[in-house]
């Protein structure tokens, strides 16, 4: 058994090497045909060169990026925020620090930095700066406000496995909730399909910026995510047709991965040797095959500790990795396992008891994961909490300290910035204030861990997208016009 497994691994690595060559060639060809290559795949990825080999399987599908991002930040002047407390999420806070932004990137950060003449100066005295807040679990756009069947586009609850659907095809860019999260300091959101299905489809990573199309909001080059869901939701939704039990759920995942693995092999072989007709495409299996190749990150809604352990075994059985468990209400019970497997726990700080599997929710969940050496993330799954992820982190921090754990304020900020960036595979680009990173920044009126703090200004890629002091400039979606009463200067 052991040998057989080893051989199959070797064969896969060989296949991958061949695929990589083909990919390089076809990429060159594709960019020639299209005139410009999609922005997808152009950003440097930290994972490249690590465990999935570079470009592994990247073009094993006929079209790598059929809905390319058209997000292009407008040019913005250089600026410096001076004399603020900078919570960098890369190291300890800098008191009386400065951040210089040029060409959409962090050019310098520190106590004393050289500022070129002409840079706009933002006085940060008494204020705080953090990286833009990242919400790894949002349904904005797919469950737009106002809530109505017409706006309910988050669950393709017609079959337990719908890997073929993509959340971006449900996103309504005029959802009036987008400006609200921006005003709460959010600069990156992962929009996921809902949790009705065992395998719910692809997520998409967006920036909350005014747009007419979802493509204009798409984070260029961000990997897709795959939404999977454990436990009560799928078995409740499919009670009649099945799965109707947790064991039925597990059979469903395994069945899907068996098909996906066969599909991946067939396509990888054809891409390597090009013999005969290409195999038939199957959108669902295409997505799953990409998850098997490591090109799509698996985000697994899972509440209970025992179910998380089973999902880890399933991932090992089929050779994929789980990037993050979501909700992970019982992550604290298996914090050691999650740390060992390097799986992030994206959790709430302050929600539970709404269903059986959420009964053991504790406010200290994130803190306990953190203390065990794991990667804790505070997520929202909620358009209200998403506006205050910093406050949710503060609650989780307070609960951790009350439980006797030693956690710094900076650690808590990482739960909604650096760690979240890692879960999205974007930790080399966003989630920290460090030279070369994208200039996604929030200027807070006070410590972001205070209930009284408000985001005063928000920048995405160095472009100011929100300034609380100038209401005339606030983003209004089309829906806001006329329907939603203008909030006025007190907003």
């Amino acid at each position, binding site marked *: 058994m052991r040998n057989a497994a080893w051989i199959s691994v070797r064969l896969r690595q060989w296949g991958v090497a061949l695929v990589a060559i083909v990919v390089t060639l076809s990429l060159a060809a594709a960019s020639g045909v299209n005139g410009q290559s999609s922005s997808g795949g152009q950003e440097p990825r930290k994972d490249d060169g690590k465990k999935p080999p570079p470009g592994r399987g990247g073009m094993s599908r006929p079209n790598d990026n059929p809905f390319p991002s058209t997000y292009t930040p407008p040019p913005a002047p250089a600026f410096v925020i001076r004399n603020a407390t900078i919570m960098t999420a890369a190291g300890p806070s800098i008191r009386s620090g400065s951040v210089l932004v040029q060409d959409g990137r962090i050019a310098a950060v520190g106590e004393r930095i050289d500022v070129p003449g002409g840079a706009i100066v933002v006085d940060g005295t008494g204020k705080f700066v953090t990286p833009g807040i990242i919400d790894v679990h949002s349904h904005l756009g797919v469950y737009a*406000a*106002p*809530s*109505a069947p017409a706006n309910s586009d988050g669950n393709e609850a017609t079959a337990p496995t719908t890997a073929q659907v993509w959340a971006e095809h449900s996103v309504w860019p005029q959802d*009036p*909730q987008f400006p*609200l999260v921006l005003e709460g300091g959010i600069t990156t959101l992962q929009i996921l399909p809902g949790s009705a299905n065992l395998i719910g489809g692809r997520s998409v990573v967006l920036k909350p910026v005014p747009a007419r199309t979802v493509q204009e909001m798409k984070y260029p080059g961000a990997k897709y995510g795959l939404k999977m869901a454990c436990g*009560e939701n799928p078995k409740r939704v499919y009670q009649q047709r099945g799965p109707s039990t947790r064991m039925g759920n597990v059979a469903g995942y395994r069945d899907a991965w068996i098909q996906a693995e066969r599909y991946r092999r067939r396509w990888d072989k054809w891409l390597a040797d090009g013999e005969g007709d290409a195999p038939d495409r199957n959108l669902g299996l295409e997505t799953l095959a990409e998850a098997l190749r490591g090109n799509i990150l698996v985000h697994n809604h899972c509440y209970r500790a025992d179910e998380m352990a089973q999902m880890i075994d399933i991932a090992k059985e089929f050779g994929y990795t789980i990037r993050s468990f979501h909700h992970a209400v019982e992550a*604290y*019970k298996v*914090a*050691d396992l999650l740390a060992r497997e390097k799986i992030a726990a994206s959790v709430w700080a*302050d*929600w*539970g*008891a*709404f*269903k*059986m599997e959420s*009964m*053991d*929710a*504790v*406010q*200290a969940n994130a803190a*306990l994961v953190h203390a*065990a050496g794991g990667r804790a993330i505070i997520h929202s799954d909620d*358009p*209200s909490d998403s*506006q*205050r992820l910093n*406050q949710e982190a*503060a*609650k989780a*921090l*307070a609960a951790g*300290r*009350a*439980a*006797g754990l030693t956690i710094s304020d900076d650690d808590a900020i990482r739960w909604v910035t650096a760690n979240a960036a890692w879960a999205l595979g974007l930790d080399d680009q966003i989630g920290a204030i460090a030279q070369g990173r994208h200039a996604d920044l929030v200027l807070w009126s006070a410590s972001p*861990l*205070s*209930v*009284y*703090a*408000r985001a005063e200004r928000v920048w995405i890629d160095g472009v100011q997208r929100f300034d609380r002091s100038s209401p005339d400039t606030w983003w209004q979606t089309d*829906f806001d016009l006329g*329907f*939603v*009463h203008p*909030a006025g200067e*007190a*907003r």
Partner: protein
Amino acid sequence: MRHLPRSNPVTRLVALLTLTAAAIAAPAGAQTLAITNARIHPVSAPPIENGTVLIVDGTIKAVGAQVIVPAGATRIDAAGQWVTPGLVNASTRLGLVEIGSIDDTNDARARGIEQVAAALEPWKALNIDSVLWTPAREQGVTSVVTMPTGGLIAGQAALVDTAPSAAVSVRLAPVAMRASLSDPDAGNTRSRAELVLRLREVLQDAVAFAASRQAYETGDTRSFSTSRLHLEALGPVIRGELPLLVAVDRRAEIVSALDLAREFKLRLIVLGGAEAWMVADRLAAGRVPVLTAGLDNIPQSFAALGTRQENAALLQKAGVPVAIIADAGETFRVHRIRQHAGIAVAAGLPWDEALKAVTLTPAQIFGAADRIGSLQPGKDANLVVWSGDPFELSTRATHVFIRGRELDERSRQERLVEKYKQAR
């Protein structure tokens, strides 16, 4: 019957059983407790630096900077800490709902008759053993209004301390009759106008029923839209003794409720009131209290397109009595009124008013201000010692007292944390 509000005699009062209450509040002999060196926010008076609260037998005896602590009193040195009245969450389902999705643990609903369940007294089935009392209490919430939900008239609400016991489970009940004018389908209806029509019909029938009580028994009345028990239960409402608490969001819904209140001379309480700020002057003129969240700003429904975080601040400024709630009907997150109050402050509500909106104002709205809601001699010692500003997310409640008794048993959550912290 010391809990009877003098100006508004409430009928069918399930008040404290005086003897039993005394037995619980003051175990064996006179118990004297002094909380000293604290920053005290009595709510009914300006803050006191380095003050003392003196509690004797579960009742506040003195509050001030110059209080003499009797010899033999138990002392809690609260240097650097804050003392406030216990918080009151005016819209919960505590003790009625344990786990939201499990029907067997939901006792906040009734089938009623055509969506009318006025006679429902959910506290009769109050689960004093719910595991959710402790998490609420340990974050400083000492009293809650717990109420049924659903339908046109959901039933009656009770004011309960978060230390329920077999002997004393309910502080005051009923404190309100809950109805809804915000869901067009709530009364087996198809529009808001029909919903108003249904409620008017039921109220008219309650008036007619009360006027022809004898004739009803002999079958000499016209037929009524609902049954005897429900009509009877509405008696105190149409007599203006028991407030009608109406869930409303849209401006038009609020105006409908105000019109009904005028027509039937009702005491009205607005629940939710997303767009209440638009009719703040009219609410203020009628002294109609509003129970509203402190952080809602999402146009989550077409009835709440005007939702904004400044609602509480604008209402307070206009002179409307405001109680800050979290989500209506909370169970697990009852404590969230702390955060809601803090956010309301960030959105313009003066801090003192925010504290009042989670203490004295809800106590006044529900007729319990003679006992709770502020730190005044003679009131029940429902109070909290905090490590700092009660609205700050880093602040912990260090001591929680209900009727002078300190409650510090660990919640289920704390026990889980302890178990798994050690397991590693």
